[in-house]
């Protein structure tokens, strides 16, 4: 965290310090929600929104420039497309391996884990894809709506 306090001089110190402390824990919790969707309430959408919220919190407290340092616009564009690509890719992969579309047990030919275990792992793969997609798109929505499309100075 370089000289963030200087060039946003007027900002309140308390907000910035507390946000600086909270953001890492929010992100870890977001990852937990995505990955732990099998055993506890959660999954791709909920975890993705929490991860997206951590970047939005950064943008609110430190200004859009800082949040764009942590996720640049081009990385965001790649992640936007990567999420649905993972999901559809897994579906197409199942079809290519002789099964029906989105039939994860067909991937058993790829790595023999057993068809039922592959279903559980297939669900995990798409949860990751959905999480990536929702995170990057939530951040994109905030950046666009708050800056009116110029993506330079937020609220």
């Amino acid at each position, binding site marked *: 965290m370089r000289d963030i306090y200087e060039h946003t001089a007027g900002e309140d110190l308390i907000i910035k310090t507390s946000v600086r402390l909270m953001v890492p824990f929010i992100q870890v919790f977001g990852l937990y929600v995505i990955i732990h969707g099998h*055993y506890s*309430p959660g*999954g791709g*959408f909920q975890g993705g929104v929490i991860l997206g919220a951590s970047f939005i919190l950064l943008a609110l407290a430190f200004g859009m420039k800082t949040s764009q340092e942590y996720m640049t616009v081009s990385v965001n564009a790649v992640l936007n497309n990567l999420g649905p690509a993972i999901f559809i890719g897994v579906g197409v992969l199942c079809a290519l391996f002789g099964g029906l579309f989105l039939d994860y047990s067909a991937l058993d030919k790829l790595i023999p884990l057993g068809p039922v275990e592959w279903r559980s792992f297939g669900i995990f793969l798409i949860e990751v894809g959905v999480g990536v997609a929702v995170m990057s798109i939530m951040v994109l929505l905030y950046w666009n*709506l708050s800056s*009116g499309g110029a993506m330079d100075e937020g609220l």
Partner: protein
Amino acid sequence: METIIGEIVAKYNYWIYVVLMMIGFYAMIGKRNLVKKLIGMNIFQTSIILFFVSTGVKKGGGIPIVDKYQALAGHVEAASTVNPLPHVLMLTAIVVGVSVTGVALAVLQRIYKEYGTLEEDEILEKLQR
């Protein structure tokens, strides 16, 4: 008369959600301010989500997360867990609601930049001129 009262009491959740829906529906078509129409749309969509989730309720049912080893051993009977299907459907409906609201807000910004107002009457005036 008591049959109607009995019926309302038995199905009071549908009555509440229909009232919520109609508030949203009226705001969407009756209000003149564009942002109020958008808020009405959100009320309508949220009340439909509540309506769907309430269909999944089972008296005495627990949350739809079962213990893995008990389930594999086959000791899970359906009466003890709530119906999971409406929850899945409403995950989709929530995402759709967020998406439509996001696009509507972006379009509202464009309208405000174009006409400088969000009151439908003032916009129509500017169009006639």
